[in-house]
């Protein structure tokens, strides 16, 4: 294995490993949410405030962005730079829409008296979902940086690896969101 390939190999592997540790972090937040989801202190429960159809919209947006991201990464690897640029841009737009919807939900809850300070259930909900949102935000910063780099450099072997890692990160966040959708919105919202 030549040196460049060896470096790409260990970086990819290392990034997968990092994603596994991030999975453990989310697992801790999930576990805490599950234990605390009924600790509503007499206030609202998931059934009262969680809207699965709203979350479904968010899910479709994020899933779509995962598709565009995956194709963008492949396009860049096969030197289809213009396609990659467009799809990466769309991914960013979809990510921003997702965050907008999420922030809208948060603000609505907070202003009507159901903020993270009102009960253990709400603390758990906001923290789990916002941690995912924070990861999405960092992913968007990453995506914008890559977009800018592609604009500057066009096709670049070093960038190929980095675009691939970003795609991996984005897909990972998508998977975490599926769990949030299922556990928080479906189970929590429909119970």
């Amino acid at each position, binding site marked *: 294995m030549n*040196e460049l390939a*060896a470096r790409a*190999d*260990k*970086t990819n*592997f*290392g990034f997968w*490993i*990092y994603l*596994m*540790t*991030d999975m*453990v*972090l989310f697992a*801790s*937040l999930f*576990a*805490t949410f599950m*234990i*605390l989801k009924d*600790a*509503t*202190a007499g206030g609202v429960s998931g059934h009262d405030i969680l809207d699965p159809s709203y979350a479904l919209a968010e899910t479709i947006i994020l899933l779509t962005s995962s598709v565009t991201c995956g194709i963008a990464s492949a396009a860049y690897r096969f030197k289809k730079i213009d396609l990659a640029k467009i799809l990466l841009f769309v991914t960013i737009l979809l990510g921003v829409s997702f965050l907008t919807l999420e922030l809208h939900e948060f603000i609505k809850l907070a202003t009507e008296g159901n903020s*993270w*300070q*009102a*009960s*253990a*259930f*709400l*603390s*758990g909900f*906001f*923290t789990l979902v916002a941690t995912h949102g924070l990861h999405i935000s*960092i992913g968007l*910063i990453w995506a914008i*940086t890559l977009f800018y*780099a592609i604009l500057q450099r066009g096709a670049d072997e*070093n960038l190929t690896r*980095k675009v691939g890692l970003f795609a991996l990160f984005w897909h990972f966040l998508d998977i975490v969101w599926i769990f949030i959708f299922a556990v928080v919105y479906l189970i929590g919202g429909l119970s």
Partner: protein
Amino acid sequence: MDMLHALIGRMSLDYLPHEPATIGAAIGMPLGLLVVLGLVTYFKKWRYLWNFVTSLDAKKIGIMYIVVAIIMLVRGLSDALMIRAQTAVSVGGHSGPFSTDTFQQVFTAHGTIMIFFVAMGLMFGLINVALPLMLGVRDVAFPWLNSVSFWLFAAGMILCNFSLIFGGFSNGGWLGYPPLTELQYNPGPGVDYWIWSLQIAGVGSLLSGINFFVTIIKCRAPGMTLMKMPIFAWSVLVTTTLLMMAFPILTATLTMLALDRTMGMHFFTSDLGGNPMMYINLIWAWGHPEVYILVMPAFGIFSDVVSTFSRKKIFGYPTMVAALTAIMFFSFIVWQHHFFTMGAGGDVNAFFGIMTAVIAIPTGVKIFNWLFTMYRGRIHFGAAMWWFMAFVFTFTLGGVTGVLMSIPALDFQVHNTLFLVAHFHNVIIGGVVFGFFSGVTYWWPKIFGFKLHEGLGKLSAVLWQLGFLLAFMPLYALGLMGAVRRIDHYTDPSWTPFFIVSAVGVGLICLGVATMILMLFVSLKKRNELLDTTGDPWDGRTLEWATTSPAPEYNFAVLPTVHDRDEWWYRKQHGIKASDDGEIKDITVPKNSALGIYIAVTGGLFSFGVIWHIWWLVAVSFVATVVLIITRVMDDNTERTITADELRQEANV
């Protein structure tokens, strides 16, 4: 919120220290720092120092870890001296030299510092120093990440010590159980200092875990299969696996406590649905793997030391690997034994108790394997072996009391008493500390080019062993007499002689550390007599001894091709030379980078801002951290070349 408070958050002059002990520390620490900076200026070493601290060479990073750890050892030991000075006199109506509040901060700092900065620091230091060399490679998988890890560790350490000068530290014990550490009972900045020191250092540790794991899996010399690695490398493999699975739990849990304290959330509060028992489960789900993370590298060190000094192959290599792996698995399913007394019922308690006792099996097997490595060897009792002898004697005792406490019904009578305190110091000092001291002695010549003075090394081992016995055996007795932990005064005068003996023991340990520092100076002065001219001072078995002492920055001019376990021994037996590995070619090594330092600074400022509610600082430092990371990630020009000619020149020197 008025302008002043928007600018400085909740900082105020009230938070300056007002007790003699804390005032003394608040003046002494900056003074010490000034002295060091003054010395560096006097000897005109700023350029050298800057090149050193911005280096991405694992060996240099390892040295920095060890230096910080030793400094923190002195700090942690002074905390211990304060604790024992207090309990030696605070009986009946007498109060000790320290107020209760100070005492509670002191034992909290003592535990936090010893685990997070001394033990973890020594561990990462030794892994950095030895692992790439013994794997026959140049560096770890991600050298820049390695630097970030170290500087985050240093930032956590600085934050923890800074609390002495301004704000005070937590008084809730090294694990900070809520609801005591919630705003309701603890509104001040102390607990927040504790949370964020650990949080930053924890992120550094997690990154190191990933780094070393990938190094072992992906970066070994050609021909080195996993089953040909030295046992120390195996111990690092299982340790990092544990690290990667456990530390995210710590990050999540500390974050939740911070959210409770900073954003009014209710994860672990007494009201509005909070559940302190959840914290206890989460923190120990991290905390138990943590202690195995600490001790398994020590086990690995002893495997290499005993094998080398007995001049024999390690007995039962595959069994040692299996035992390490078994210990790793089991350490994940025993955490509840830290709170048998929370009332989970017979079934749950029994399950965790049995799983805890089961860990004694692979651990015991390892002890037998070490003993039978000595069997029919020709043992050279250098200082590193003296530490091993002390380890077997001490750690076995600690294991016995551990098995005792693994039985829930027994634990009900000794939990949270001084018996427990004696047990965990028993295994941590006997296992972790003695192991790391052995490792430092063993690898010192490789890093610095000269051996440590043997006589003083052995004397320090004796002082530590005696000191340990005197400091902690009385605590076993005290626990059985009903003395609980963390008390700053007591009424029963029959306890006092025991506390006094314990204080003498701590004094002996301090003498042991003083002897080690003396050993350092004497070894430096006598280095020409102690010089390691061959690179192989112990007639070693593994690849780190195949290089010069000190090893060059790039470790090996040509990466060795590995034939067998104990590859260096094999080469010596079969007359294989470095030139057989192939022709010298150009190599690339990482350039220096100061970004690790900068990220630690912005991370530290972020934490400081959260602690003191300086929200603009939090925002600015967050943005700065992101910018710094992007700067590095998008930089493709991070390596420099060393030409084959330069390598050949160095090889001939």
